[in-house]
């Protein structure tokens, strides 16, 4: 690794430097000027985003632990855009609620972003863990950012609850994932993805894979690891939830791509069925539990859970096509969900609570806000000519095209998913109904801060643009997905070949060692791990 190799990390370094710069500027600014940190952060991120179009970041660095490609770039741009929108959307709120701690807010947000931008490119489990935590730790803080003393019903109590729930579930899931990683790395005999790709297939390895899936599933909000989602969304600061509900999920998708597609692409049988099962559960839980929700944030939280189910469905296909659909879905989802949350936040900031009743008569108070909400809802529901429609359909197409033993199950999943998307429409329409069909409590327009307005418009443009002309994004996601494709199986090292023989049945743990292909292998100290674990 030399300086030239750092080019690959340009964007990540850019984000990290931005974070530090924001913190430094915050230190020197007087309290009254601290709201300038937000535009600064947004500006810096925009600069990084612009840079992404001019700097060639393809290549490998950090001794193979990080690899930049069109695939990483796809995600990085998405994160950067989400970050910019998230900052713009939250500007006013942060300036009002936490006047003296604005710089930290953006610092933490940028730190989290730095973690995210690393994630799609990781090719090593250690780096994966670090970037995952780098992304996650600031989020715990941000979720509980609005502290205030005393009042158990107040904003602070809400924030602490949101934070502690996110934190505990997150930490526990990290521990579980770590445990899984230990098996993966152990069986593979190393932490690089190359080791994973060439690892021999054992049950411990499979166990590791699903535990890692569980760990990442937490961040995605996959059922049954989703239960923090509605509670945290309800308690955390509004604009932050918009960010939290979209960017980290996309980052988790990126992690899934890296680990399961690039790393474990050869071991699909270990995780694809589990993922399909989780997809089913997630779609179902998300769609059903959203029905009785009266709180907009909780409703959108569950809807987000359902959407993750659809993404997992495409992911479970294990095909590059499916992955491309996931990437497309991720973009559509981020644009839509951030937009929807920001609109909900705008209205809630004005009316003071997050209940759906707050949306009543929005069309009369702020017609354009109502249109934006409607468009986002339609996109979430998967209605033609907005992004969500194509996303959902591509997922179904990809899932339907699966061949092999999972085919029948995938077909059932598509049917269930299609029907559940109608159920989802039911609760989205509850919001649309409040906004369009009920009379407003008062006629005065909703005050929307400038930054928030820009953010909403950006999301709107993205959603409608993708919906009207999905071609370029689809091409981009296909190009990106191809980069995540695992390399074709390499020749197995000679040392292992004799062990594998003709029947590669998985090794089993037996007393005093392993049984590999019927042959007892002692596991005394000093043994080459290849001979112990199959590869």
């Amino acid at each position, binding site marked *: 690794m030399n300086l030239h190799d750092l080019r690959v990390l340009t964007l990540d370094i850019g984000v990290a430097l931005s974070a530090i710069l924001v913190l430094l500027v915050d230190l020197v600014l007087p309290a009254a000027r601290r709201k300038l940190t937000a535009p600064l952060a947004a500006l810096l991120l925009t600069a990084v985003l612009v840079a992404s179009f001019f700097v060639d970041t393809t290549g490998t660095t950090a001794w193979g632990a990080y690899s930049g490609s069109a695939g990483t770039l796809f995600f990085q741009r998405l994160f950067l855009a989400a970050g910019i929108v998230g900052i713009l959307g939250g500007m006013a709120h942060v300036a009002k609620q936490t006047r003296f701690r604005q710089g930290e807010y953006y610092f933490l947000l940028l730190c989290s972003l730095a973690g995210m931008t690393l994630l799609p490119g990781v090719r090593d*489990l250690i780096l994966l*863990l*670090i970037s995952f*935590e780098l992304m996650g*730790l600031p989020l*715990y*803080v941000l979720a*509980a950012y609005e*502290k205030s*003393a*005393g*009042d*158990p*019903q107040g904003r*602070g*109590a*809400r*924030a*602490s*609850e*949101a*934070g*502690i*729930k996110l*934190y*505990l579930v997150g*930490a*526990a899931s*990290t*521990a*579980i994932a*770590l*445990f899984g*990683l*230990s*098996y993966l*790395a*152990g*069986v593979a*005999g*190393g*932490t690089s993805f190359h080791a994973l790709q060439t690892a021999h297939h054992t049950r*411990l390895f499979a166990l590791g894979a699903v535990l890692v899936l569980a760990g990442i599933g937490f961040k995605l909000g996959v059922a049954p690891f989703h239960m923090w989602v*509605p*509670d945290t969304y*309800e*308690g955390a600061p509004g604009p932050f939830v918009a960010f939290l509900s979209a960017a980290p999920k996309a980052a988790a998708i990126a992690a899934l791509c890296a680990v399961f597609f690039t790393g474990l692409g050869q071991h699909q049988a270990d995780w694809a069925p589990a993922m399909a099962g989780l997809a089913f559960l997630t779609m179902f839980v998300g769609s059903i539990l959203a029905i*009785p929700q009266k709180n907009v944030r909780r409703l959108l939280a569950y809807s987000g859970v359902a959407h993750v189910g659809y993404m997992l469905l495409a992911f479970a296909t294990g095909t590059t096509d499916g992955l491309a659909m996931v990437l497309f879905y991720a973009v559509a989802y981020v644009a839509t969900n951030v937009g929807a949350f920001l609109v909900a936040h705008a209205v809630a900031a004005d009316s003071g609570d997050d209940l759906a009743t707050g949306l009543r008569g929005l069309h009369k108070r702020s017609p354009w806000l109502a249109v934006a909400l409607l468009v986002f809802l339609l996109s979430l529901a998967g209605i033609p000519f907005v992004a969500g429609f194509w996303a959902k359909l591509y997922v179904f197409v990809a899932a339907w095209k699966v061949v092999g033993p999972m085919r029948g199950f995938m077909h059932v999943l598509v049917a269930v998913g299609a029907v559940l998307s109608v159920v989802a429409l039911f609760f989205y329409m509850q919001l649309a109904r409040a906004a369009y069909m009920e009379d407003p409590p008062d006629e005065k327009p909703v005050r929307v801060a400038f930054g928030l307005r820009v953010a909403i418009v950006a999301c709107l443009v993205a959603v409608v643009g993708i919906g009207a002309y999905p071609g370029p994004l689809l091409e981009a996601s296909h190009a990106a997905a191809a980069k995540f494709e695992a390399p074709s199986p390499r020749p197995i090292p000679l040392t292992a070949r004799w062990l594998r023989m003709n029947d590669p049945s998985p090794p089993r*743990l037996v007393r*005093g*060692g392993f049984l590999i292909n019927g042959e007892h292998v002692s*596991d*005394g*100290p*000093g*043994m*080459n*791990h290849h001979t*112990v*674990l199959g590869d």
Partner: protein
Amino acid sequence: MTLTTCLILSAALFSVGLYGLLTRRHAVGILLSIEVMANAANLNFVAFAHYGGASWGQAFALFVLGLTVAEVAIGLALVMLLFRSHKDVLVDLANAFKH
């Protein structure tokens, strides 16, 4: 001490941690349980690397230790926050959001 013994030990450790995670009401207790779970993983790393004749495991374990420290730091801060608003650190006090 064989690899198998180590693996069994770490699995047991993990289970203990999990048990603590699910039964402790005290926030710090839960944090500790999570630490135990993380250390079970660490044990695995070290054991695998040791019996595999390599040193990546030790490195991994060190990274994990560093990360858990950061995690616990944030965790304790959150516990403080919980204490401030609820005057106690039993996690089931924070149950305003549900259903």
